[in-house]
């Protein structure tokens, strides 16, 4: 039972990382390699706030907000100038990540930092004692998905987002301010990255190179998701479950390689994303 919970949590961890990436790719056609840098900023901002005595949950929000501001700046100064050259945004966002990691190294040092969980208790779930904080990750991931779903499905903003995804030129022609849409998209993506970074801090071990290990599976998951929320959830679950099951029952050494291999095969089978069967 506790293994089942592990699977859920690992999927939620990957999902949290993937959400920001997926939104930015889906609406902007930008693969945001700055994600790991943004997550690092989120966790260091939260850490700094927490060390100053700010309540843990408030500190997580501080982390998200700091990353959001940074995302707005990056969009305005860099990303906006590269809309016509999508492959270049890959390079520029990687540059942003490098710069952020170096800035963090300069101010905080290279060493790992400790970020304490707000509670270390275990709670009984489905007949087993399970660390409460890990459950929080699960709840948070699915709360974010639920909010995003409701926004996309039922609000005016969601409608605009779906329009831009379907046909950007047409949306612009109908008077949608696509520049503003991109700006807000990148802001939301960054907020989510910061939120994920801060929230995962206590269980991931904080350092400037934070979350780089999650980046390869995260990008594969985004490609695999095929631009729907359900796809993001499915892809995160498939990859996280593969990694966890394989390392538990077979061989932890090859878990990363097997996960990537599974992703690579699935990408071939579902070129349009997991939620759509291959066009025959």
């Amino acid at each position, binding site marked *: 039972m506790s293994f089942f919970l592990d699977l859920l949590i690992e999927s939620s961890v990957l999902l949290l990382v993937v959400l920001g990436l997926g939104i930015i790719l889906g609406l902007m056609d930008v693969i945001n390699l700055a994600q790991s840098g943004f997550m690092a900023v989120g966790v260091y901002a939260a850490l700094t706030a927490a060390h100053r005595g700010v309540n843990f949950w408030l500190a997580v929000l501080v982390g998200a907000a700091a990353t959001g501001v940074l995302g707005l700046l990056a969009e305005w100064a*860099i990303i906006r100038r*590269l809309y016509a050259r999508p*492959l270049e945004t*890959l390079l520029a966002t990687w540059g942003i990540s490098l710069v952020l990691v170096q800035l963090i190294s*300069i101010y905080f040092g290279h060493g790992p930092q400790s970020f304490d969980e707000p509670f270390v208790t275990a709670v009984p779930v489905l007949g087993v004692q399970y660390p409460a904080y890990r459950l929080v990750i699960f709840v948070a991931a699915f709360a974010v998905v639920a909010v995003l779903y409701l926004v996309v499905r039922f609000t005016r903003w969601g409608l605009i987002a779906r329009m831009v995804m379907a046909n950007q030129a047409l949306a612009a022609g109908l008077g949608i301010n696509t520049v503003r849409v991109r700006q807000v998209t990148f802001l939301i993506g960054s907020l989510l990255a910061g939120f994920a970074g801060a929230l995962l801090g206590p269980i991931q071990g904080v350092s400037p190179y934070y979350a780089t290990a999650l980046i390869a599976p995260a*990008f*594969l998951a985004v490609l695999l998701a095929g631009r729907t929320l359900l796809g993001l959830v499915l892809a995160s679950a498939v990859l996280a479950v593969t990694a966890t099951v394989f390392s538990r029952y077979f061989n932890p050494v090859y878990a*990363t390689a097997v996960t990537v291999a599974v992703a690579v095969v699935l990408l071939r089978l579902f*070129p349009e994303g997991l939620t759509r069967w291959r066009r025959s």
Partner: protein
Amino acid sequence: MAAVLTRLRTDRSLAVRAGTLLLAAAVAATGPLWGDRFTVYLLTQAFLYAALAISLDLVWGYTGILDLGHAVWFGIGALTVGVMTTKLDATGMVASVHGGPGTYLLAGLLAVVIAAVAAAVVGLYCFSWRGSTMFYVAIVTLAVSVVCEALYLELRWTGGDNGLFGYQLRALDPTGWFYLCLVFFAVVATLAYVLVRSDFGLLMRAIRDNEERARFLGFEVDLVKISVLAGGAALAASAGAMYGSLLGLVSSPLFGFLFSTEIVIWVAIGGRGTLFGAAIGAIALQFFSSSLNQSFPDQWQLVVGLAFIAVVVFVPDGIVPPAWRLLDRLVGRGASHGPTRRLVARPAAVGRTAAGPLARVEELLFGYGALQVLRGISLEVGRGELLCVIGPNGAGKSTLMAVMSDGRMRHKGTITYSVDGVRDHAGISVSALARAGVMRKFQTPSLFRGLTVAETILLASRRGGYLSPLRRTAEIAVPAPVVALCEATGLDRHLGDRGTELSHGLKQALELAATIAAWPDLLLLDEPTAGLNSHERGVIGDILKTLVRDHGRSVVLIEHDFDFVDQLADRIVVLQDGRILAVGSTSEIKHDESVRGGYLGITGATA
């Protein structure tokens, strides 16, 4: 030799560049005379990094494949040498080193083969299916890099955490190594230079600029991309093998994503697609970072990161091309362009006189999703016939051409050709059809950003055939109508200009010239005169007549201007709502009541 000297005298821009290169080469070659031990050691390594950067420049800068795992191929080189020259003890540490220069050489060759095969497999996966975007190869190579780095740490035979070490080839002293690496770099750079100037180099740039168009010219784009990736990997592995033999060291970061992106940064900052920029970027950044890394490691990395972003956003060509231009302005006044290629007419093969139609379309049905565009079209195109397709917008004219030129668009009904190598067109790719002699010209010009007019025509004239990776064709042999077209439209005065910088009329002329240069049996021309004035139309009309009457080519032409059609067409097909409304000679069509009412909008007495 004399010719070279003359060119250097008349072309100051070239002279300045050659002088700069010679100066740089002289400074580098005399390194052991002016530098201390540490400098010589840094330069020796930097030459290998420069060779590595050039290998990435071929793959990314010239062919447009963003390889974010290029370090893996380099790592394979260093690791193969390490594995073949060391023995591990029970704890996985290096216990002894063995092997003479022969072992190192063999290991190097083996590494080249392993890397080329591995890269070909990655390329096969990334390129060989439709719908793979440019992001794909970037993310997949990134993933390969991350996995290799992780696996390296876990495996035993790689030395795990410690890596393999102490296996440097001791047969050479530092000065010997310096010159060996310099020569290695010079060989790699020369090979790369010959390649990018060759006819094959043109194809690499064409694929980078407009992959789809290259397919329609008959080239097997996926195969070319796979070969370039494999070739780049082989070069990188040879540099890696040299690196391993020089330092006697390999560990997991050599395979990693961070090192991969470092190579990308060298090439981007120096200037992608210039070779020289990639080499200079690698040498300079490597040299400075080794000196500065000790005192200010984080600050230096920060500066590199900021410079990288700035280059990507503001100077996407990198530092070197603007620097060349500056040099030209300072000293190279009156700079001429290099020798441009010329067109020469060659006797063109006359169409075969076999009986029967060249193309036959039967009961063709095609739709995009729920929208049915072609609803049962049957027509024939005879040899040496000019068939005009007219009809209102949305009738399915362009879609008909799209399906005829691409056997992989799913349709119902049959299309058969009687050209070399292809009969039933179902399942035949665009490039195979083009090679067989069915070629399409798009409605809107779709050219190669980095290619000149002459280069575009040269590529097209090969129709997907062999392009030498060594030779640079200066005289382009094309069928006489191409020369006539170029002269009549004034395109011949722009042979050295880039296709995408021409006026609209010249772009259309170039598209048509390229299509004719390929000398297909069947030309599918989608509004070749769109946006042209009446003089230009007349010129194109005459050329098309010559093609059909004198050379036995067959042409299917989509046109809106009925007067133009009236002068040219052997037969006319009128399409409406995906069906054929009428077929016949111009006079038959003009008198056809349904056409007159439905399309031409003429009522009453005939002219």
